[in-house]
């Protein structure tokens, strides 16, 4: 049985959560100094679950003391989960809201903060309502809340706001466009004050770590990827859903044991290991451990742990189009290489898919990838460039076939054929037709 730490004892009710030992870790943490709580997190080797994988305890330790910098400290929780393929935070918030809130309060204690903002994506009405109900329950229990105010701030539909500095801009009431770093949020974040930004799953892991002790938590998993990880499985798989696993389990086992394999007797074509922005794995590359180091050896990553399974009906050029359209739609427009480059990638891929591309277009595609990658404030454009380059590298014969045949080799039978993306919806509107 895989360990269940984050998703264990699912309940949205305060009484049931306390009955199962809930909020005991908060009392334990408040009997410790903030520095001691941070030390436990460092000992746990917990790394950020949003995708960047930064050691959580170290991030907390970067917050200057109020003696050094006399400003309020803020905890901002990133619940703007929008990475295609990831839906773990959705379920964590809905199933264990009090474990999440307890994590917020422990973290606030550790970083000496009295102000918590939970930035939840606007589309998550269900989890939002559950979270608000859980916070309502705490109104009768001032000793739990202590001197901390928790504000739930709803986004309004923008993938870029998952990037921490764009999130802070959005939380300040502005367009969600990334900031230049440094300064880093730990020193100058929300309202130019010291701020810790953590992902929902990271925060939901804090109370169990304090309860069991950091060293005990660090016994789970493998070196560099300790504890548990909630993975989201989706796509062409029998049992899509979220599963809490011990890192190191192979992707093959995740897809076939937990996910139940591929439906309809189809073959596996590829697996996207950590959400849309991660380098793709072919069907013969999945005997790899689901952990940081193992995936780094095959030049990809866990990202936000969204595993997307693709069967043999998926045209890889269409996959590139769909996700390039996504990045084009979600580019905030601040940096030229991303704003223009994502549009170019979509256009060249579309040319390939339609059978209008020449050999030079394939070279141009990779050239555009190079002109985006590493040249922007945030990784949004990089993600598009990196994944498209990985599709070409691993499925070059399929790209070549589009040029040689002058058509899609799947001949209209691809699982992604004719999909209407939002960006196409906008550009085919009557206004666009008239202007057209």
């Amino acid at each position, binding site marked *: 049985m895989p360990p269940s730490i984050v998703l264990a004892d699912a309940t949205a009710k305060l009484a049931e959560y306390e009955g199962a030992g809930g909020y005991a870790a908060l009392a334990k943490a408040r009997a410790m100094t903030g520095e001691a709580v941070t030390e436990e997190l460092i000992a746990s080797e917990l790394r950020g679950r949003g995708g960047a994988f930064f050691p959580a305890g170290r991030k907390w330790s970067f917050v200057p003391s109020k003696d050094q910098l006399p400003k309020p400290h803020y905890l901002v929780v990133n619940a703007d989960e929008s990475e*295609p393929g990831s839906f773990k935070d959705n379920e964590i918030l809905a199933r264990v809201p009090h474990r999440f809130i307890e994590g917020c309060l422990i973290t606030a204690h550790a970083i000496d903060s009295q102000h918590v903002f939970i930035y939840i*994506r606007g589309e998550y*009405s269900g989890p939002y309502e559950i979270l608000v109900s859980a916070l309502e329950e705490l109104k009768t229990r001032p000793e739990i809340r202590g001197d901390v105010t928790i504000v739930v701030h709803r986004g309004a539909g*923008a993938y870029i706001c998952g990037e921490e500095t764009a999130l802070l801009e959005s939380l300040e*009431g502005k367009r969600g466009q990334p900031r230049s770093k440094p300064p880093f949020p730990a020193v100058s974040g929300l309202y130019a004050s010291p701020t810790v930004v953590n992902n929902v799953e990271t925060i939901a892991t804090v109370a169990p770590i304090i309860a069991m002790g950091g060293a005990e938590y660090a016994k789970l998993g493998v070196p560099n990827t300790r504890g548990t990880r909630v993975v989201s499985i*989706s796509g062409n798989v029998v049992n899509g859903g979220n599963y809490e696993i011990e890192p190191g389990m192979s992707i093959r086992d995740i897809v076939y044991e937990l996910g139940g394999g591929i439906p309809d007797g189809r073959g596996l074509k590829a697996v996207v290991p950590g959400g849309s922005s991660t380098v793709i794995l072919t069907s013969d590359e999945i005997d790899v451990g689901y952990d940081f180091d193992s995936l780094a050896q095959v030049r990809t990553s866990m990202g936000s742990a969204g595993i997307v399974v*693709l069967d043999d009906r998926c045209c890889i050029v269409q996959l590139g189009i769909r996700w390039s359209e*996504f990045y084009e739609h979600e580019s905030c427009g601040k940096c030229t290489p991303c704003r223009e480059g994502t549009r170019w990638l979509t256009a060249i891929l579309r040319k390939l898919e339609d059978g209008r591309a020449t050999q030079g277009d394939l070279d141009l595609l990779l050239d555009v990838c190079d002109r985006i990658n590493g040249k922007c404030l945030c990784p949004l454009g990089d993600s598009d460039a990196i994944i498209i380059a990985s599709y070409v590298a691993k499925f070059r014969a399929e790209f070549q076939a589009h040029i040689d045949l002058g058509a899609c080799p799947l001949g209209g039978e691809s699982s992604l054929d004719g999909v209407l993306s*939002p960006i196409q919806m906008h550009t085919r509107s009557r206004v666009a037709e008239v202007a057209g």
Partner: protein
Amino acid sequence: MSALWDRIQDERAKYPADAGSAVLPALRLAQDEHGWLSPDVIREVADALEETPAYVKSIASFYDQFQLAPVGEHLVEVCTNVSCAVVGAQQVVDAFESELGCRAGETSADGKVTLRTVECLGGCGWATIVSVDHHYRIHVKADNVAAIVEELRAT
């Protein structure tokens, strides 16, 4: 002053003075009340926030959920990102277009339902996800669409 104005002041009070953070909450309240963000509504929000209408509109136009043109009484949003698409999201979109007699991005002739495709809604393992008036329906198939449309037309 209007009830909306009061509720926007309540939102502002959740943030430090002069923080400006209440723009998104205020726009959401206004849209919930009026259905969409017309120039008049943008002005009302701007006045309540002590901002300019131009500034408020610049924020509203950045975010996908804010409607700057009239919409129907109900909003149907179908995710067509990859995890939903590979298990039949486009067939769901086609079924809605057929049932409603309008294309994605448009509103049915009776003004009841606006249909849109949207980017990943964060429910990939329960595809296809359709957000109906901001609440998710999961495992939606083309076969389920007629019943959803009937339900919306009845309310």
